[in-house]
């Protein structure tokens, strides 16, 4: 115990991650690949929306999926069966993806041949909001059964997303979910967010979402 000394470190884990994320974004711009980070609670419809999105956009764009659903190969298989490249990340119980994990996942793709990679992030509205993945845009899903009060409970998630898909609108009317109130709460946190009402079950409203995504992609790929 004689010569214990104080060694300064001065590093922020989040800012290290932010630096790595910027590096990823640079690489993706060079490769002309759009990276979409899709987040939601478990069961809100991430896999369903990815399948719908692939259906709509695969004639125009080549698409890959980076799957981080905890300890399951099921989703990657579901996606791969649509003829789309899918990579399963072993998140081992981690509650979110960080830029380093995404970089590892992207290394498994040939980015030169890909226009769009969709990340299915770990199902959780807290931790993924804190860590920049290097994505071009962030999107989230809130499903009607989860309630219109979620922006109050998870403000950070709603403020880091560029688009919000309100999924399972086929359930509207079965609870006291108010779309008006939701919009108001979301816009207060994030006035610039694009909001889409959709049902992955019936297909209603999917076009609005895919039009937005395709528009953002064209801007990015130009």
């Amino acid at each position: 115990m004689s010569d214990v000394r104080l060694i300064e470190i001065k590093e922020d884990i989040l800012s290290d991650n932010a630096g790595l994320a910027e590096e990823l974004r640079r690489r993706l711009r060079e490769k002309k690949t759009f990276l979409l980070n899709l987040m939601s609670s478990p069961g809100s419809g991430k896999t369903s929306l990815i399948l719908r999105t692939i259906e709509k956009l695969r004639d125009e764009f080549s698409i890959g999926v980076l799957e981080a659903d905890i300890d399951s190969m099921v989703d990657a298989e579901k996606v791969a069966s649509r003829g789309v490249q899918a990579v399963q990340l072993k998140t081992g119980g981690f509650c979110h993806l960080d830029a380093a994990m995404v970089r590892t996942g992207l290394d498994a793709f040939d980015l030169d041949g890909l226009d769009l990679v969709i990340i299915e992030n770990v199902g959780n509205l807290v931790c993924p909001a804190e860590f920049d993945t290097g994505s071009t845009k962030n999107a989230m899903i809130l499903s009607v059964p989860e309630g219109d009060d979620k922006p109050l409970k998870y403000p950070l998630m709603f403020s880091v997303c560029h688009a919000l898909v309100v999924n399972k609108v086929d359930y509207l009317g079965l609870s006291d979910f108010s779309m008006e109130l939701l919009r108001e709460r979301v816009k207060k946190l994030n006035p610039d967010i694009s909001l889409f009402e959709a049902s992955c079950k019936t297909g209603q409203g999917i076009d609005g979402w895919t039009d937005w995504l395709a528009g953002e992609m064209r801007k990015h790929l130009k």
Partner: protein
Amino acid sequence: MHELPVTQSILDVVLRHAERHQVKKIHAINLAIGALSDLQDEWIQSYFDYIGKGTLAEGAKLKIERVPVVFRCRACAGEFEADVREMRDITCPTCGKGDLELVSGREYYIKSMEAE
């Protein structure tokens, strides 16, 4: 909720610096963690005890300081501290506007380590 990955990052950073400074043993690590993080101090310590086994940081004590949540108002540029438990409808105490920017409260900052 993300004690494990955050703790792993802390260990990685600290070991990198330990090598640079030719440290033999790390006794303590001084951290500043934002109040918005829901990390529990006890959990971080017990994860750290687990993943630190067999490294220079085995048994090191994590000393955690909480950084308050501070917002800057985009309308009047005033800064103010907010209570995390009352994050619902935060408005600027000076001008009453709600267009705010987070200045601090999210960090996972490794300040220093005590080592020999």
